[in-house]
């Protein structure tokens, strides 16, 4: 009898504990953010800065730690995230648009915009068209004139395939109607080296990295809808007469896997923009030359959908 009673009480206690656990104020423990690139890279250190304030009570109320899962241009980490990561809000991930969307179109991946739920966006790094300091080209028109005289001979470097730089190149080649050659380097730094050393005619690279190297480069144009505050004198590609929009801008933000409870998504989505807008975080973004652009979940959903439609079209010609 006594044993039965104890068992009953124990069971009751256990179920109430489990019930409490489900009801317990999320989040009750530190939250992870999976970064699909190695530690020390731009996405990694921006993710660390962007989530600095998460521990504040008014914000998420729990500290955030970073889990790096690099490999295959981000595919290793994002595949893991979409298929194996816990769907209870204990593990978030950083996204890079257009990278992951372009990859989900070209490769057989576990992730795409339907298996992921955005929470908010912290940064936007546009691609810029650059040439070396000693290059004979001073404007986009110079470069295109050279391409007219020498079809195929104009080489443009970028950080590999199906990333923002590659998208910018594809748009640029299409809109200008010229025969250009894309040189996919192993990463952004290597793509920049090819330009600085004069191995390639030009390059698409991150605005942040290019602005820092202004002494070794000439920045011809920004692949965005408006000029950028860091480079007020540099025209957009549209101003330079080539119809290229902001589809190649490298957006960075946070997401959870689809299937995460709606109340968890709503909670995180309501807090992330404020977390990114934290004063210290914004100061740190600025001092590290990381272009910030805070967007809400709804704005990101709209942006993802727009990119998905556009990139499907653009990349269809390549398959």
């Amino acid at each position: 009898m006594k044993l039965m009673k104890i068992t009953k009480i124990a069971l009751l206690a256990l179920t109430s504990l489990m019930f409490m656990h489900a009801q317990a104020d999320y989040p009750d423990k530190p939250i992870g953010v999976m970064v699909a690139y190695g530690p020390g890279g731009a996405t990694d250190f921006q993710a660390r800065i962007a989530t600095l304030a998460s521990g504040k009570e008014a914000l998420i109320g729990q500290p955030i730690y970073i889990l790096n899962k690099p490999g295959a241009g981000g595919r290793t980490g994002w595949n893991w995230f979409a298929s194996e990561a816990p769907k209870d809000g204990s593990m978030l991930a950083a996204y890079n648009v257009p990278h992951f969307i372009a990859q989900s179109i070209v490769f057989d991946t576990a992730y795409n915009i339907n298996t992921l739920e955005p929470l908010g966006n912290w940064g936007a790094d546009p691609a810029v068209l650059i040439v070396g300091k000693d290059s004979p080209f001073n404007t986009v028109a110079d470069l295109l004139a050279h391409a007219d005289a020498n079809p195929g001979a104009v080489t443009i470097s970028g950080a590999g395939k199906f990333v923002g730089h590659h998208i910018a190149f594809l748009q640029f080649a299409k809109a200008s109607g010229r025969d250009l050659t894309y040189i996919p380097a192993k990463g952004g730094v290597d793509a920049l080296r090819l330009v600085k050393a004069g191995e390639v005619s030009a390059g698409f690279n991150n605005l942040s990295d290019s602005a820092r190297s202004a002494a070794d480069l000439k920045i011809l144009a920004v692949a965005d809808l408006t000029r950028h505050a860091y480079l007020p004198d540099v025209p957009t590609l549209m101003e330079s007469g080539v119809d290229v929009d902001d589809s190649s801008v490298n957006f960075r933000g946070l997401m959870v896997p689809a299937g995460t409870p709606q109340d968890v998504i709503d909670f995180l989505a309501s807090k992330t923009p404020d977390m990114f807008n934290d004063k210290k975080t914004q100061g740190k973004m600025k001092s590290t030359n990381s272009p910030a652009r805070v967007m809400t979940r709804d704005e990101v959903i709209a942006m993802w959908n727009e990119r998905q439609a556009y990139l499907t079209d653009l990349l269809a010609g390549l398959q």
Partner: protein
Amino acid sequence: MEFLDYFSNVFTVYHIALLVGGTFAGIILGALPGLSPTMSVALLIPFTFHMKPESGLILLGAMYTATVAGGAISAILVNVPGAPANIATAMDGHQMAKKGLSREALHYCFMSSFVGGIFGVFILIFFTPPLARLSLEFGTTELFWIAILGITIIATIDSKSVVKGLLSGLFGLMLATIGDNPVLGVERFVFTDHLEGGVNIVVGLIGLFAMPQVLNLMEKYYSEKHPVLSTEGHSSLMQSFRFVFGKVKALSIGSFIGSLVGIIPGAGGQIAGLVAYDQTKKVSKNQSNYGKGEPEGIIAAESANNSMVGPSLIPLLTLSIPGSPTAAVLLGGLLIHGIFPGHEIFVSENTAPVVWTFIDSLILAQIFMLIIGLFLSRHSGWIMKVPDNYMAVSILVLAVFGTYSIGNSYSDVLIMVVLGTIMFFASKAGFSAVPVVLGIILGPIAENNFLLGKLIGGARYGDDWMIYFTTGTINVTLIVICIASITYGLYSNRKSKRST
């Protein structure tokens, strides 16, 4: 002499504490498989977030310096290089340890690391402007030829049989093709999801060295009664000191090649150590003793990988182009502190104090690395006396832990175990792990730069794209060196066959 002006900044209690702590931790971390210099520096960067820029950089610099040297400890004591840079060290270092000369081997290692390291830092201090220009000359095609030069070494580096060396190298090159190719934008040989990320160099390194060692130790434990290791060497510090500084040739070849490799973007300590080892071997009088515990091998490899540290910062600080994989991670460390590389970094009012303090601290880091390293060497005997069964378990735990920590991925652990098991049986048939790792390291450098060079050459010269690879002073020089290396390899192979 700007570097003298800021020396006093390093001598604060806080900075000295950071240097000592960073160096000590770096040596230990470096000795653990998986926590390579690149990984250690990357993991440390977030911790420097809240430090002042110069303090953060001093800590990162000490870590970079010490991990490169620390990797030699495990290479010598347990034949498991802590990082790719220490592969060449393991070949003779562990043989010395087996003969009971582990303490001497460690003495030689830290002393030659110190000499190379100081040499490299002084190159950084005095020759940055001209060498920054030179580093830009090493482009796509030059890197391709450097990788080919490395491949010419494969056949002879650690095998008695040229055929087995070539086969092992080929196996490594094939492993390197697995996974995503950034230039082609396609996945290759990904038969299971585990292979999606390819074979990471450090995962391969741990698998090919640590796992066979674990299995060897277990086999030894169960088959024979473990032989008690021969007595420890008795050389005093002074004797080691005299010995190392008597090896002027090995030290200068190592330091020179290491510095040169440091300046070249995209090549790092792993190439520095192996090329220096190979070159020193070729001009050595004790050639036949290499691979059997020749101290010169350790001296050349360790002076090379540490002299690479300073010069790898030359293109990093001036051009934002890292001279080694670790320098690439360090770039992130510079950026989060608002230090943006450029030629003006050494003179601008805002950055000059930080940068010069950082460079000065590298000199002190070398000194602390020597002192702490020599202190630890005194106790190397402890590790050599650990019974085989405990040793096997410890290496296994560290190998699994280290592999997992690289990409937080079980797939990597799986790859490590499978490769290690294959290597264990292959080594019984006389195959060596060194050419396999060389293949994994050099394969992507050779292939990707070939593809890029072909694209760029094709855009410039059309069907005559080969011209791009065969013109330019550095390309021609490298081609000549490649031919010489192959010819020499064939010649010495014939000679040794005739003499036996």
